């Protein structure tokens, strides 16, 4: 019963709330009054766009001079993010869903890779939580959103691991819990920190464009 709710109405409601929320937040940002930029740009429009686009990728890795001070945090964060992407886009069931929704599909990664990736992802998530609770800067910055968003990402990973191992409670219940936890994530995504899944590209792009306009390093 729980599973058919999760796969049916639950999925539809969560998806709609996510779409409404994301467009609401993006529109609320982008439709604010914009002051035209009249300062003479140092680069032509094309170069500025390229600057914006490039920054979306270059900001993924911090500049070398920052490495000594940010390596642990960044490393942990990427073990999590890369691990999550491997699971998401390499796991057979996920590719299946993507295929059913978007019609595109690609070969999946061997199960062993997914198991290792999910183990690392889970470990990284826990380490990141410990770091957020112990690092003085993060203690000061962290809000309820950070911890709620952490939990809402942790649950799908944890239930996913239990599900792939078909450990406790049988496939049906575990699959229902996994899908419900993903739906909770979809519902929360637009209203909290997870919105950075969209804002990170917009943020880096706008900064890259503006800095390229000034010919400044991005």
């Amino acid at each position, binding site marked *: 019963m729980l599973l*058919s709710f999760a796969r*049916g109405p639950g999925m539809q409601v969560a998806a709609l709330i996510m779409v409404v929320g994301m*467009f*609401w937040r993006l529109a609320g940002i982008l439709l604010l009054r914009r002051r035209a930029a009249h300062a003479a740009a140092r680069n032509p429009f094309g170069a500025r766009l390229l600057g914006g686009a490039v920054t979306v990728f270059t900001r993924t890795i911090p500049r070398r001079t920052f490495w000594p001070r940010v390596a642990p945090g960044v490393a942990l964060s990427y073990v999590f993010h890369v691990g999550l992407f491997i699971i998401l886009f390499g796991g057979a069931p996920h590719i299946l869903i993507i295929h059913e929704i978007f019609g595109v599909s690609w070969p999946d990664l061997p199960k062993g890779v997914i198991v290792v990736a999910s183990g690392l992802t889970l470990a990284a998530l826990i380490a990141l939580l410990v770091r957020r609770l112990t690092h003085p800067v993060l203690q000061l910055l962290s809000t309820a959103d950070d911890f709620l968003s952490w939990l809402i990402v942790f649950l799908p990973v944890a239930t996913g691991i239990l599900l792939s191992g078909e450990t406790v409670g049988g*496939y049906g219940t575990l*699959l229902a819990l996994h899908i419900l936890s993903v739906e909770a994530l979809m519902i929360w995504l637009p209203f909290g920190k997870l919105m950075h899944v969209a804002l990170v590209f917009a943020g880096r792009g706008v900064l890259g464009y503006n800095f390229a306009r000034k010919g400044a390093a991005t």
Partner: protein
Amino acid sequence: MRDETVGDMLGRRGFSRRGLLKFAIAMTSSLALPPSLAPVMAANLAAARRQSVIWLSFQECTGCLETLLRTDSPTIAGLIFDFISLDYQESLMAAAGSAAELTLRQAVAANAGKYLLAIDGSIPVADGGVYSLTGGRTNVSMLQEFAPGAAAILAIGTCAAYGGIPKAFPNPTGAVGVEDVILDKPIVNIPGCPPIPEVLSGVLVYFVSFGRLPDLDDQKRPLAYFGTTIHDQCYRKPFYDQGKFAKSFDDEGARQGWCLFELGCKGPTTHNACASLKWNDGTSFPIESGHGCLGCSEPDFWDQEGGFYTSLAGGTGPGWRNAGIAAATGVALGAAAAIAARRKVP
């Protein structure tokens, strides 16, 4: 005849105690009981009176009865009809009409409190249950009349257990399972559309041998047969583990006998013994013959999300049109917020 023991009856028919012991050994294995119980079961069976069974058919298609009878060779399971006395079964008995009615009354009176009440078919309760009558009487009233005198009730088939196909949306007749009508009797659900014959004989032998129903799970199904899912027992599971899936019903993967998960197989969420006991006397079971499991032994299997051919991993999203509307709503809300914000900026 009435007080003759099963043992005497079998002896009369030239069936040796050794044969009975062999039958008991087979049943203990099938019921996943410890082998040491076989002699005990054989002795109990020998000493038992033939168990009276009253079979009432309600809103059913007779598929459940067919599957129990349609064994091309008289296997051990067939012997079950020697241990029970099927005192009333509308399709099988010669009598009909008021004569049948009389037989039913007599059987119920003679075995008050001791007979097993076997039901197949769902019980329509809408509009006072008028959608299924036997001799002018609604099924629900008959069930309520004969349930109290039963030692236990066997809900045979997904219809009797959970309402089955008649209960599928929109369920015009208000079909329900036995457990929705009778709340105070030990009930064992033997779902399946139809159920596996060996499961019924296992349950009957257990009841006749030990005088009580076998261990049941939270949906009142015998754990011996419904404790694991088809997926757990499926011979194609190694392909599932290696991520080898058939993409269409006759592609290379399907011909290699790869897992049918992506073609909507509901094995992982369906509890039944098809993968081990198999069907038609062990010939095969749906997955072995190349089609995904439909999940027929699970409640509301007919109304499953996304239908039989949507994989368990998938689901039905809101659809692109609704997504578009949602996006527009989002933009409208965002615009409203932005306009409100602009008004605040001096």
